[in-house]
């Protein structure tokens, strides 16, 4: 029951935050200089055409009316008309978002596996050479930005060593579009060649995305394990002869991983932001590349939609993380309620 209440509180809170975000970004998009109707019509269009577009986009109405009209459309699943792609923004999102989410899913897998492997290894052999090597790697991993890794990986593993494709998402014919997710579509239609081809293309961009957060989380797990290693309850179990492996992975890792898990969820959601840069380097046909294009073209409806879509994903990820953390650490549930 406590858990359900806790989740409900988070959800209500998230809905309010999203409303706030939509107001801020919507107002910013409308108030800042620039005439979107003129931009949509083109510089040489006659005034009456611009006027028509202004009416079409509701730009002639007061700001609060514009906002509520926009909000009504959003609840009907319509994010507005894009002056850049010349069609509904909703369509654009449906088309481009899956590719990004798939890339992020692969990156998340790398990130989680890598963080736990490196963190546990460093924690088990603390202050030995394994630990020192991992710590050095962690510092380097954090310091090079995702787009820097992308450029380096592309140069070394794609251009020089020719182990992976240089860019793009597929070099074979795309599977029939059913869900929009290449991995799922290729499995449904039995196109295993497309599936493996996708993975091959995804390795480098996903690694470039994953390596920074992976390094940071590995550090958190390591320091958590070192902090907890000589706590009384661990020493007690050890003295009672609990097998070392069980001790390490069940009793020591669980409390030590909590800080890393909290960060992990946020980091995975942030991948969507970093993907903005990596997708450009690898020419990945995803949402982020679309987002950059609309931003460079100042396509207002699309910019607002991009921020909102990412905001929604980020907040959902946040709630999931909080739930996992509350599950791992019962103290959180009680403290939140007890206030």
């Amino acid at each position, binding site marked *: 029951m406590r858990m359900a209440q806790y989740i409900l509180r988070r959800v209500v809170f998230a809905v309010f*935050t999203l409303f706030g975000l939509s107001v801020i970004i919507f107002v910013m998009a409308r108030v800042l200089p620039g005439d979107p109707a003129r931009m949509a019509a083109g510089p040489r269009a006659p005034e009456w055409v611009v006027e028509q577009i202004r009416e079409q986009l509701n730009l002639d109405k007061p700001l609060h009316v514009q906002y509520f009209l926009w909000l009504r459309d959003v609840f009907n699943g319509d994010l507005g008309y894009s002056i850049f792609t010349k069609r509904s923004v909703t369509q654009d999102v449906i088309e481009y978002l899956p590719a990004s989410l798939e890339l992020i899913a692969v990156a998340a897998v790398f990130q989680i596996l890598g963080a736990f492997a490196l963190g546990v290894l460093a924690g088990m052999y603390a202050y030995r050479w394994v630990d020192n090597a991992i710590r050095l790697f962690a510092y380097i991993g954090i310091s090079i930005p995702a787009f820097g890794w992308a*450029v380096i990986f592309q140069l070394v593993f794609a251009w020089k060593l020719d182990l992976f494709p240089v860019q793009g998402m597929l070099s074979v014919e795309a599977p029939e579009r059913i869900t929009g997710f290449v991995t799922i579509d290729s499995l449904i239609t039995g196109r295993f060649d497309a599936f493996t081809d996708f993975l091959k293309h995804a390795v480098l961009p996903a690694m470039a995305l994953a390596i920074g957060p992976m390094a940071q989380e590995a550090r958190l797990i390591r320091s958590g394990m070192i902090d907890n290693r000589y706590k009384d309850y661990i020493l007690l179990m050890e003295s009672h002869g609990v097998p070392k492996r069980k001790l390490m992975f069940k009793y020591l890792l669980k409390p030590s991983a909590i800080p890393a898990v909290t960060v992990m969820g946020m980091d995975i959601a942030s991948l969507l932001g970093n993907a903005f840069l990596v997708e450009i380097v690898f020419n990945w046909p995803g949402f982020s590349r679309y987002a950059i294009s609309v931003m460079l073209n100042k396509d207002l409806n699309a910019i607002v939609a991009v921020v909102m879509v990412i905001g929604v994903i980020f907040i959902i990820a946040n709630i999931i993380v909080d739930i996992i953390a509350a599950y791992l650490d019962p103290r959180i549930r009680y403290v939140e309620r007890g206030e």
Partner: protein
Amino acid sequence: MAIAGRVTRRQLVMESLRRYWFKFSRSKLSVVGLAISLSTIVIAVFAEYLAPYPEHAGFYISFEDALQPPSWEHPFGTDEYGRDVFSRVLFGFRFSLKLAGVVLSIVIPVGVLLGLVAGYYRGRILDMAIMRVADIFIAVPPLVLALAITSLLGPSLVNAMIAVTLMWWPWYTRLTYNVVSSVRNEPFVIAAELAGAKPLRVMFREILPVIVGPILTKATLDVGWVILIGAALSFVGLGAQPPTPDLGTMVAEGIKYMPEYWWISIFPALAIAYIILGFNLLGDGVRDMFTE
């Protein structure tokens, strides 16, 4: 001249400085971080004296020198216009540091003040108003919001600064708020209030000193992160515009010439890493200074 048995103020200051240095320098990595950060600042300030070809920083074309690999003459090679990449990277340090300096010097006072007020008046309307707005800005990955705001303002270095400033303050507000909340009911604060201290005095004289450590730590780490966001903005074309020697812009420009002319992109990317690594290590040292 100190008389035996009495301690001057100067000696006290020296002693506490010595203690801070001891805690800081216990980790050799922190000292390395300090060295890297100082070198970054020196390079940024004296770029035109250190760069072998200062005129290459801006608009300069010499096609006969274009796309040369790294050599003694051009340690990082030359770009598509024949400009010395090494010189441009040195100037890139200046733009990166300027961004971080401007952003942080606005964001820290504003963010801390708001957090202080919200934490002091905890549970009141003021607290709700400030913290809910802060939550909204924190609800989206910083890079995405910075990109969106810069694109709405129009791409330029100044607008990139404004955008990063707009979305960075809530992190300081949140940090200050958490610290203030934790000391709000401590005896020393209550005592000051009972003695009749005004709210402003309690906030600035009693509570503010407690926050200095965490804020200073975060500020040091943030120099790196602000520079990273700035580089990312110019990388996608929303920040500094060519021919400005901005590190992010240089990485982006060089990608077109991969893989044959890799040095145009790789060296600026490594320069960004050098700066971030320096301030990260320094930040860890600053954190050590204020713990225990």
